[in-house]
């Protein structure tokens, strides 16, 4: 049973379809997110299982994993980020081009997880802005897919001017990201 996605609201005619630009762009962005798997530890292995044949993240448009930040849309941070790794993560986030989304997979990336120690960054939202958090230790592949689907919702409904707005710029400044 194949579930067909709904067309965006628009005006249909013989050979044309008129709708608003942001709906089309939203739909295109949401269904072609190229992830950058920033896999550091155990959640990375669950991600490998998600990309495998059983759970198959490629159905959602994430067929091409991009390890280069310049070509990726979605930064999936999976695993514990130690304080030594923090600057590396920030640099990778900086190198990504707008629009970009961040998915924090796992308890360690969201909040430090079970490692409340001197060497672990207690959540990546201390250094980069995060869009969706996926809890779990490690989260099941279905949960990771749900996280990606929430990012798809965000991408579909985002206003085209959001990245240029004052509020967004202020948020980036609060993280010391220009």
């Amino acid at each position, binding site marked *: 049973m194949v579930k067909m996605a709904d067309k965006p609201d628009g005006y249909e005619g013989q050979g044309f379809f008129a709708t608003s630009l942001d709906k089309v762009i939203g739909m295109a962005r949401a269904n072609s997110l190229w992830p950058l798997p*920033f896999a*550091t*530890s*155990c959640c990375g*292995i*669950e991600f*490998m*299982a998600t990309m*495998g*044949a*059983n759970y198959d993240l490629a159905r959602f448009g994430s067929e091409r*994993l991009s*390890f280069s930040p310049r070509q990726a849309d979605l930064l999936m941070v999976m*695993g*514990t980020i*130690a304080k*030594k*790794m923090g600057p*590396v993560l920030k640099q*990778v986030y900086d190198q990504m081009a707008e629009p970009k989304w961040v998915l924090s997979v796992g308890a360690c990336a969201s909040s430090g997880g*079970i*490692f409340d*120690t*001197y*060497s*672990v960054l207690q959540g990546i939202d201390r250094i980069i802005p995060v869009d969706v958090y996926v809890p779990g*230790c*490690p989260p*099941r592949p279905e949960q990771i897919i749900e996280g990606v689907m929430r990012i798809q919702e965000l991408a579909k409904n985002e206003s085209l001017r959001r990245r240029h707005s004052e509020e967004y710029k202020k948020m980036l400044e609060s993280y010391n990201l220009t």
Partner: protein
Amino acid sequence: MTTPDTQKQGQAPLVAHDSIDGEIAILNLGPTHPATHGVFQNVLKVDGERILEAEPTIGYIHRAFEKLAERRPYNQITPITDRLNYCSSPINNMGWHMTVEKLAGIELPKRVEYMRVIIMELSRIADHLICNSVIGVDTGALTGFTYMFQERELIYEMFEEVCGARLTTNIGRVGGFERDFSDAFKQKLDTFLKGFPARFEEFDGMLARNRIFMDRVIKAGPISAERALNYGFTGPNLRAAGVDYDVRVMNPYSSYEDFEFDIPIGQDGDTFDRFVVRQQEIRESLKIIRQALDNMPAGKHFTDVPDFYLPPKDEVYRSMEALIYHFKIVMGETPIPAGEVYHAVEGGNGELGFYLISDGGRTPYRLHFRRPCFIYYQAYPEMIKGSMLSDAVLTMSSMNVIAGELDA
């Protein structure tokens, strides 16, 4: 320019005299890199494609396990041991439980030991499957990876039947298991044992005698047996170099002496030998699982140590002593004697040792993990000296360096 001959690259001069401009470049590999499976960095000094020197930097996922263990009661340390070599976490869990049992002097019924052997060998199969599929991926063969991850899903389902979790299992308890093997588990194990060997031989047939694969991995990253022993290698990497040291045979634990299995060894210690040794070890693990299933003794799935093993829940609601034992165990007030013990198990990567010093309190005084990955990764610069950059990537993935075990 002469065509580089990968068969003889171990004898090639370090500085290629026929290179175009002979300029030495510094190349940074990592910490985020698609080919390094884990977060560690290598700063390479390369001349063209040939590596002259390498300097590894690790610690990008240092989570301070040893300090954390000094603050957790003994049964709360099991989830920490999960995250050492997370591809085969049941082996770490069992190793930790055996260490505590050795310290406290707890004897286990045979049935528990056989159950532990089955779970440990299943996780060893899972670990070696990842390593070998990833060697295939690094040479460009992605099909094997996709096929073998399906097999890992079957193993995950079996772990879920026993403990509820797929990857970081926190399986078993000090003194046995939480519950006996259910019928669903036995059924899944039977299906697995029937169907897996044929699919595994298909994967083996894709790579092990494949002309392209063999040309690629033979003589990539070799190490001799003397250097491997001097570097403290253990596990499949040491066995590929020709030394038949296996903790399961040398210091048997958990009734391994009851089982008959061979130890595969290689010759040159290169990537091909590591691949073939791990393939054969998967077959040996299947043999062990079959023997354990066939000879499984009857009995309970736990031992009678109410000080360490939680009493059944219905008794906790009815009997006062069970309630007190339950309270004490959950609060971490277990009567672990003072002393120091070192116990080693054969992990997926080699001798995983637990050095535990207890002062009689509710948390360890000192817990040190002897992590095989950390110890043998030191040899990486020596193994890739003079080889090509692509062979360096293959050597790293064939050594099965798991970042969690590297940094702890």
